[in-house]
């Protein structure tokens, strides 16, 4: 029983990261019907930029740990957001009216480009975050859970909640939802779809970048290929929850994390990655619109 609860906790913790990244995929797909293959790489950039900024500015020493981390997070999210906007301009906007296959290839090309640029800048070896966070743990329900893990989970959930409120309650958020339902109608309503797209490519990557920073801070070790696996799992999570559906991405992420952890714990661990892909295919066959239903422009 204790193992079950522990594995559930493990699953939720990892799942919250998947969920953060999944939000980026789901928003872009909802509005543009495009799988942004490069999104996982933006997540990786978040982790690396965090490392560099941490090293260059030593904010935690200057401002104290909490404030320092906050400023760091804002900087990282901002930089990755800019990167996301550039990506949209360079790789996707010119292909807005082209057949979808072109956009897919371009997305792949962008992913390869970004990944290798990172490798050239930072080198091929693993990079390690400096050990600045306290490694204490608390006891909850008889389990020893590191405080950091709770913090990661808490931060992710908070960011997702903020996003949800933003999309549901603000005018800009409504514009995004409108564009996701029907781009042309939204345009007719006076919504500047180009701006909405830009916004989506700013918010999604910012969240992805934040996830990268969290991963770097918590696990300590980052590599330039980590975007690939996380990206695939996050995309699976987005589909699981219903592509284009923001709460769906959150639910999908957490659920996937838990399914993975339990599957790996009770079946063989070697098949762990296979579980995620299997879930993906199963969902697409049985219920392609996902658990909470998809929200995309132009249903066929």
């Amino acid at each position, binding site marked *: 029983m204790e193992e079950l609860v522990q594995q559930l906790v493990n*699953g939720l913790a990892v799942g919250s990261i998947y969920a953060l990244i999944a939000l980026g995929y789901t928003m872009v797909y909802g509005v543009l019907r495009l799988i942004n293959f490069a999104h996982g790489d933006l997540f990786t950039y978040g982790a690396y930029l965090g490392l560099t900024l941490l090293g260059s500015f030593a904010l935690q020493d200057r401002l104290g740990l909490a404030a320092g981390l906050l400023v760091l997070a804002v900087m990282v999210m901002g930089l990755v957001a800019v990167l996301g906007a550039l990506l949209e301009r360079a790789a996707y906007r010119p292909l807005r009216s082209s057949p979808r296959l072109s956009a897919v290839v371009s997305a792949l090309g962008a992913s390869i480009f970004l990944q290798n640029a990172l490798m050239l800048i930072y080198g091929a070896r*693993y990079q*390690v975050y400096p050990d600045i966070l306290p490694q204490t*743990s608390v006891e909850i329900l008889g389990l020893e859970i590191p405080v*950091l893990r709770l913090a990661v989970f808490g931060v992710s959930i908070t960011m997702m909640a903020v996003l949800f409120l933003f999309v549901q309650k603000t005018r800009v958020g409504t514009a995004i939802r409108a564009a996701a339902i029907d781009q042309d109608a939204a345009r007719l309503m006076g919504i500047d779809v180009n701006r909405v797209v830009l916004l989506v490519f700013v918010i999604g990557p910012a969240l992805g970048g934040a996830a990268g920073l969290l991963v770097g801070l918590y*696990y300590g*070790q980052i590599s330039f290929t980590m975007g690939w696996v996380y990206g695939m799992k996050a995309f699976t999570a987005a589909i699981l929850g219903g592509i284009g559906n923001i709460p769906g991405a959150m639910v999908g992420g957490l659920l996937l994390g838990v399914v993975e952890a339990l599957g790996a714990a009770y079946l063989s*661990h070697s098949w762990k990655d296979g579980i995620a892909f299997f879930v993906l295919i199963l969902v697409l066959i049985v219920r392609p619109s996902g658990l909470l239903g998809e929200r995309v422009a132009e249903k066929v």
Partner: protein
Amino acid sequence: MNRMTRTLAALGLALATVGSARAADTVKVGLMAPITGPWASEGQEMKRNVELLAAEQNAKGGLLGKQVEVIVEDDGGDPRTASLAAQRLTTKGVVAVIGTYGSAVTEASQAIFDEADIVQVANGSTAVRLTEKGLKHFFRTCPRDDEQGRVAAAVIQKAGAKRIALLHDNSAYSKGLADEIHAILKAAKANVVFFDALTPKEQDYSTILTKLKTAGPDIVFFTGYYPEAGLLLKQKRQMGWKVPFVGGDAINNPDLVKIAGKEAAAGFRFLSPPVPKDLDTPEAKAYVAAYQKKFGEAPSSIYGVLAGDGFRVVAKAIEGGGSATAPAIRTYLTTQLKDFPGFTGKISFNGKGDRVGELYRVYQVDAAGGFVLQP
């Protein structure tokens, strides 16, 4: 018609850039190494070691009166690239090839060199099956996984463990080693309570650690690579789990301490051939100093030094046998090379091409993060 012409021109160009200049009068030794790719750091050390030794040899007059030329080909750490690199070397007139690192990569090149009658001395390929195929031209200066398995099993049993967990990462090397250890332990009727793999290149190993913890072992032997080992140590400490972990030789890398953090890594033990700074013969020390002088840092990987030893045995075979041809080198290595004073210890080869003797030692990480050789 433009396109067609273009294609034909491209093919024509390929045909035109044919042929390798046959430089006269040097003894050509090939080096196949992962200069690029996932093991680039190993490959580049291999290159440095061999080129330094070749230069030293040439300063002493070369081999049989001729200068030694080292021809380097990059195998990229990948079997397919390796087979192309091997093909390339066979066209360049080499009499022997040193290399390479990574059993699957070496395997892709074995048949090619054997069919071309070129002697191959591998430095970083420990899979047992490489010398079980009856290939007459294949040798290796590195030990085999079954030797490491024996040492590992001995270490585990010496630690008095009653419940043993074996963890690998499903890669060829790691699973092979884990299988070896498992077989020996089973034959000794030891209680192996856990045998499973983690997925490499991930970061969150809490699931597998929880699973391990539930199995209740009193020692865990991990046969994977250092990045995963570092993360395991770090996360195990976060969980507050104190059971000792022991690792295989793929853990031997200074980054281990960086990833795990000093506190998590302290006390961790692993097996490895001795690292270059611990080589104790006078010639080895002199060589390490010479390397340090030329490149500004000591050699960090033992596999690079093993490549160097590979070159030295080939050089010895050429001089001792009086001939720079593959059959002569081969004969010398199998019949006349006994207890050659290699940097890494005494070298002799058995009939299968394996190095005779025990190379594996136990290392422990101290509180400052240094690797200390255990007696």
